[in-house]
């Protein structure tokens, strides 16, 4: 069954189509949730809440653009809302200069996707959100600042810190591979 037929079936309220649609995207979306959530159980909660929203708001999908992108946006928004509900952090204002960390990016090829996901999900709370939104989803710092209700400078500094943290972790995992922090 093609994607459009599946969506139309879901709009008619067909339980079978809903199941098929879920099966088609659940794996990819769970990987997204794992990146944003603190624990796998939180990721499962976000996935469940996100898919309920997908099915209840399916009539708003215009059949223009990628359906997968639409679902992904809903899942990410759900993850962000969950994060905002749970978090509170003391923000430090101003630009915090951190030393840039030269690194060997090819180190990433040594890790499996599951290992990478685990690594990203272990990033500290604030870093993780910014890193996911900027480095993985490709949002600008201004957009992220608006989404998370933080300052743009905070977003920048948290991304730098996140990269640094990841490099340190990679170095610990593969001390022989060149991950140089000067």
């Amino acid at each position, binding site marked *: 069954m093609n994607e459009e037929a599946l969506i139309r079936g879901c709009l008619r309220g067909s339980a079978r189509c809903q199941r098929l649609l879920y099966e088609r995207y659940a794996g990819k979306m769970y990987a997204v949730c794992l990146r944003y959530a603190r624990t796998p159980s939180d990721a499962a909660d976000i996935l469940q809440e996100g898919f309920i929203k997908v099915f209840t708001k399916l009539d708003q999908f215009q059949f223009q653009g990628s359906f997968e992108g639409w679902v992904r946006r809903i899942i990410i928004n759900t993850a962000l809302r969950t994060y905002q509900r749970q978090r509170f952090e003391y923000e430090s204002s101003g630009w915090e200069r951190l030393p*840039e960390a030269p690194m060997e990016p090819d180190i*990433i090829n040594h890790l499996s996707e599951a290992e990478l996901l685990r690594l990203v999900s272990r990033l500290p709370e604030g870093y993780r959100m910014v890193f996911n939104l900027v480095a993985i989803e490709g949002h600008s710092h201004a957009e992220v600042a608006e989404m998370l209700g933080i300052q743009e400078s905070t977003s920048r500094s948290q991304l730098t810190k996140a990269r640094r943290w990841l490099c340190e972790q990679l170095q610990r995992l593969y001390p022989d591979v060149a991950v140089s922090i000067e």
Partner: protein
Amino acid sequence: MMPPEHRFDLLLRRRLQRAEVPPPPAVWEGVERQLRRRRRRRTVLWCVVGLLLMGGGWLGQRAGLFYPAPSPSASENAVQPFPVLPPPSPRFADEKEEGQPAVSSSLPTGAILSRKSTLTATPAARTSPVEASDLLALFAPPAADVSALPLPSTEPLPTLPGPSSMPVLQAHREPQLSLTAQKPPKGSAKNTRKCYRFGEKGSTWLIHAYAGPSKALARWRNLDVEMDSYAAARRRTEAPEGAFNAGVRLSCFPHPNIAVRTGLQYDQWIERFEYTNPDFIRYHVVITQKLINGQWVSVADTVGVEYGAEYLRVYNRFGLLNIPVQIGLEWRKGAVGISVNAEASVNLLFHKRGTILDADGKPTAFTPGAGGRVVYRTRTGLSIGGSVQGFYHLAPRTRLFAEPYFHSVLRPITLPDYPIEQRQCIAGLRIGISQILGQ
């Protein structure tokens, strides 16, 4: 050349955007359960709406809302066993005098009959002779007004030449017509009985008691631009949880359609305050008294450190007492009616208990006397609002009513020195009972 951190991001993005991890089976079960529950809730909602519409229709029918207003003649008909027919058309011979059998009369002349009278046909009509004028009358447009017609004549009209076997159609007078009076609208008598006659005995007084759900709507304004992040943090940590209203009210009707009301209303709303500090550190310190150089000295010793997240959830409660003065216009029809009210009230935010985030980013109690920050006023001043009440008379002196309302407190409920100004509006539904006082 691309900076290494960008290459790092790019490689990660490529790898992670392709990643797929099978979710636990419990997720789909949860999704399915929630969707089923939503479907069931929607079905129940539609059933409730259907029942309400049916109930409303039934009440409306009982109240006679779906019938035109009865005219004086109609009301006369309603109390008489037989309807009074207008004088017969002169074009019709008097059937009694002619000794003709009863004739069908589902005629266009029905227009000149009373609205509440019906004519029934008898098969004998087919055997009666037809007269020319009668045939003409059958196809003639209905007479506009009975009084415009000439007086009845006793002279028979000329008969139409034709076969002798042709039946003669004749109109007949009231006693021969098989007429049945249509029943008056069901409930109209009851409605008249149920509706209290306002204005008959001077001013009318009513007492109301009500309760219902409501929603508190807060509007925030940041008085200090530097407090933007604090305002955002407060928005993140507070969420409305529920609200209700209850009250008693006295109404006076100096005029049958104008009411002046006053009473006491209590509005309570609840907010959920949630605070998480992910960088929570707790030190376990043991203080011991030691004798050093002949003197007792307190020595602190850190025996442990806990790292974790601090989570705090508090349900903040606010109680607002209103003393309203309302002016309303009321319209009634049978047992039902509607009134539109404008109100001004004096408010006291006499009950406030809970915790909010302080400007330094830490939770602080705002309950008076708790040692925290005093944030809210007690005397919040005037509020203005309005309501629309729909009611139904269960008995001549007893009404059930539902009244959506809205009122907005004019002054901020926060103290002037607090950096975020909070204004409060409350919308809700009053559901209650009214009793008309006096004899």
